[in-house]
């Protein structure tokens, strides 16, 4: 789809994101963060501070909407963290304050063996799940088809960290791969259930964060434990799926491209062009503006350079690499769509 000399009629944000996820022509590159764009400034702007915005549907929807209304992104993402399911599964939580993300107390794991893994009957009616589902409904009602609403359902590898503890889970993967696969197989039910429920609530696409990151495990690990399971998600969950894995991932991008996921949300540790060369036109890429060094600590001009590097590499959806730091300045975030629009003004339709 690269550099097709094709005239595309003006699209809504929703149409633009969905077309890019399907690798179809777009009127301009969509700006999208499939993890989170919540910041303290945005919380203040719409009176939706953490931790309440993670647990109250109205506040969650208000804060999520700012991605579209205040920043000019083409998508909204109501799930700001990675812990809603883990809370519903019974993990011990630290909900934190306005200036920090909620976290699972992974040093106090709830499961040790395959038999311990039980998806509770009230999983989908747990308040922290209902909050997300209601927020999605509110956003759909408010924005109709104007903006792409992306939901989030955690993959089984990340649930493994939360429910078994990071070290016990990683050691288990080495000591007993068969048991680990059996655990993943049970935990994937949570991923599927919550994903399907979000589709019923009105999402257009789903992010599946599954942190088999290059900082922790090898590319071969991804292939052995997750590639087929991710392909299975594509078969079972009937909306475009965006896989998110942080860190250096070029050694597993080829495997990821084979899963049939609509897109891969990639980290700035992977160069845009190198990543595009590996992925080719098999799936889309979303990313990969650096968070801690650029969006958080630098200026719009630095943001602009990274956006341009992605556009010039042909990355189909542009956005931050991961959930943005809560203290990120709005002007740095607004620079992303501003640069994308300017670039298309100069270059016309790129995709």
């Amino acid at each position: 789809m690269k550099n097709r000399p094709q005239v595309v009629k003006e699209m809504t944000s929703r149409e633009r994101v969905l077309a890019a996820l399907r690798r179809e022509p777009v009127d301009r590159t969509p700006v999208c963060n499939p993890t989170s764009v919540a910041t303290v400034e945005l919380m203040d702007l719409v009176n939706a501070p953490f931790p309440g915005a993670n647990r109250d549907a109205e506040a969650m929807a208000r804060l999520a909407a700012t991605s579209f209304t205040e920043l000019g992104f083409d998508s909204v993402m109501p799930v700001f963290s990675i812990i809603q399911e883990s809370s519903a599964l019974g993990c011990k939580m630290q909900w934190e304050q306005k200036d920090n993300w909620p976290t699972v107390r992974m040093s106090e794991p709830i499961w040790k063996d395959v038999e311990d893994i039980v998806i509770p009957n009230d999983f989908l009616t747990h308040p922290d799940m209902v909050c997300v589902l209601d927020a999605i409904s509110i956003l759909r009602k408010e924005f109709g088809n104007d903006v792409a609403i992306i939901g989030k359902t955690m993959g089984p590898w990340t649930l493994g960290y939360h429910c078994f503890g990071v070290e016990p889970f990683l050691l288990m993967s080495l000591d007993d791969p068969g048991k680990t696969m059996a655990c993943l197989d049970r935990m994937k039910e949570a991923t599927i259930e919550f994903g399907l429920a979000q589709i019923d609530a009105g999402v257009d696409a789903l992010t599946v964060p599954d942190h088999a990151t290059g900082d922790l495990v090898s590319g071969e690990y991804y292939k052995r434990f997750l590639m087929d399971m991710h392909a299975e998600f594509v078969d079972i969950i009937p909306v475009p799926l965006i896989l998110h894995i942080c860190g250096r991932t070029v050694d597993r991008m080829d495997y990821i491209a084979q899963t049939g996921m609509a897109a891969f949300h990639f980290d700035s540790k992977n160069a845009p062009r190198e990543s595009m060369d590996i992925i080719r036109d098999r799936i889309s890429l979303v990313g990969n503006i650096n968070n801690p060094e650029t969006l958080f600590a630098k200026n719009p001009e630095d943001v602009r350079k990274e956006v341009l590097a992605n556009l010039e590499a042909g990355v189909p959806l542009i956005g931050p690499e991961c959930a943005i730091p809560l203290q990120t300045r709005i002007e740095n975030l607004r620079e992303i769509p501003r640069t994308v629009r300017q670039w298309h003004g100069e270059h016309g339709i790129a995709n």
Partner: protein
Amino acid sequence: MAELSHIANEFIRQEIDEFLERPEEIERNIELFSRVRPAMQDIAAALIEGDDEEVDRLTKQALDEGTNALEVMDDGLIAGMGIVGIKFREAIIFVPEVLACARAMKAGMKHIEPILSESGVEPVAKVLMGTVKGDLHDIGKNLCIMMLRGSGFEVVDLGVDTSEDEFIDALEEHKASILGMSALLTTTMPNMGKTIEALIDADLRDDVMVMVGGAPVTQEFADDMGADGYGKDALSCVSLARKLAEEGA
């Protein structure tokens, strides 16, 4: 000059030959293992393979046969951990494998520590390590601790979500010469700076060298906060701690 063929243990020879690329590291390890007794090489090899049962057995056997505990630790366990650290840095092995090696290290150290403690052997330095306030992530910190312990440091682990006051109380209690802070979240990184400020307010800053690390942390950020050093990964943490221990001595 020592040569690879001087090393008795075939597995160690293969590890050096296959996985080490930096000339100075190849030379250092050939030098080290060629002078190390075969029984110690066997311990190092078992550790590199992450075989905790074998390390447990071989360490006990070596001590029972009268080998000095310090020799078992330095020439067996620490020497093995050195290769593990390099393989991890070069992405030849990943965290699960390192965790298994650390478990093997622990299996050997459980026999050695009581002997060293009884004989009053001093560690390289005493290090306090903690993840900062508001942050519950500890895998990076724990890897650093494993590598530090595997390199002869005494480490006091303060765990996660460690407040400025907890760092200060621990420093006063343990009289450590190095304080290490870790953060995975951009939201909690600033708490490293707050802890350094608290050390200044408590008039303790000159008593301790401060090192920081964590996925979003950079050298620039560490400098801005007034840390004495930044470690990119667990192996850098060890070399940094060695440097800080020398500077602080």
